[in-house]
């Protein structure tokens, strides 16, 4: 999806989007002039919104939390793959 649709889906304004991409919190495909967002970008933007909102995470800590969550997903994926392989 393009930027406009993404902003509606993610309930985000354009300025915040630029800042979040600048920080590396969001990494859409495509170039600055023609960005392409996917479902995971929407879900991640909502997660960032939740973190900064009701979960009380400040901007300094957002990348820390995101990185740890991504590491957990990587580990979960590895465990899942290893479990599948060890099945007779």
């Amino acid at each position, binding site marked *: 999806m393009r930027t406009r649709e993404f902003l509606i889906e993610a309930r985000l304004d354009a300025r915040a989007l630029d800042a979040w991409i600048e920080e*590396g919190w969001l*990494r*859409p*495909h495509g170039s600055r002039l023609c960005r392409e967002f*996917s*479902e*995971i970008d*929407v*879900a*991640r933007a*909502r*997660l960032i919104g*939740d973190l900064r909102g*009701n*979960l*009380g995470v400040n901007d300094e800590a957002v990348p820390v939390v*995101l*990185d740890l*969550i*991504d*590491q*957990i*997903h*990587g*580990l*979960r*994926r*590895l465990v899942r*793959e*290893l479990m599948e392989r060890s099945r007779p």
Partner: protein
Amino acid sequence: MASDPYTVLGVKRDAPQSEIQKSYRRLAKKLHPDLNPGNKKAEERFKDVAAAYDLLGDPAKRARFDSGEIDAAGQERPAQQFYRDYAGSGDHAYSSDAGFQDFAGAEDIISEIFGRQGRSTVRRRGSDVQYHLALDFLGAINGGKQALTLPDGSSLDVAIPPGTRSGQILRLRGKGRSGLNGGVTGDALIEIEVRPHPVFKRQGDDIHVEQAIPLADAVLGGRISVPTPAGPVTMRVPRWSNTGTILRLKGKGVPRPDKTRGDEYVALKVMLPDKPDPELERLIAQWQSAHEKHQQHAAVGA
């Protein structure tokens, strides 16, 4: 959501608005599905909590609920897709293998699993770069910092852990090639070569040395100074120690990661004085003739 929203949030019916918000935030921190990626129950409870807060978090809606105008039913939220619903696949720009890059011997499996993400638009981690670093024997045993000069002329400070051995590979995170499309930078993999030492030999975590001792100490016993990787120590030589006797200096070997150390084994080598010593020669001659007589007596007696 059928149950009472006040019960779900764990607040009294007359709780102030601030307390409702506080309680919701406390529960959300615990139950948010993205903070519980493997927990289905947390998601269900989070949905109930969020629905309850939708109702009670808004003072106008709360007043209508309290007066019986609306009820808790119909407050179900549309099924929300959480980040975890996408992040699990791994085939995306945010996937991370940083949590297990140090699993020894697992590189093949990891690259096989994570190498499958084939889309060229995906951010790729930069590749690792291999270097070779030769260390002095004692530098490798005792550890420390070592500068590594890179092909581009820049320099990299490498922390050498104590007890590093030849063939060991040190990983410097983020010192490899930069990633594709903004992906994470790769690592520098430094293969260590330890140069031999003229005195010390390493076997596993133990150090072996050969130590010359004066004839007098060999016969009568004594205290001598012995080199160890951490500096010289004084060692007691028992009387009548022959060439080839091996003494152990406990804990004077190679440092291990658990802070213990291997041992040092000292092989003794009995040395005569540098120059012929007439007094010693006379003494030995006396001793020898006495010794021979003693043997003849023993032979006659037999």
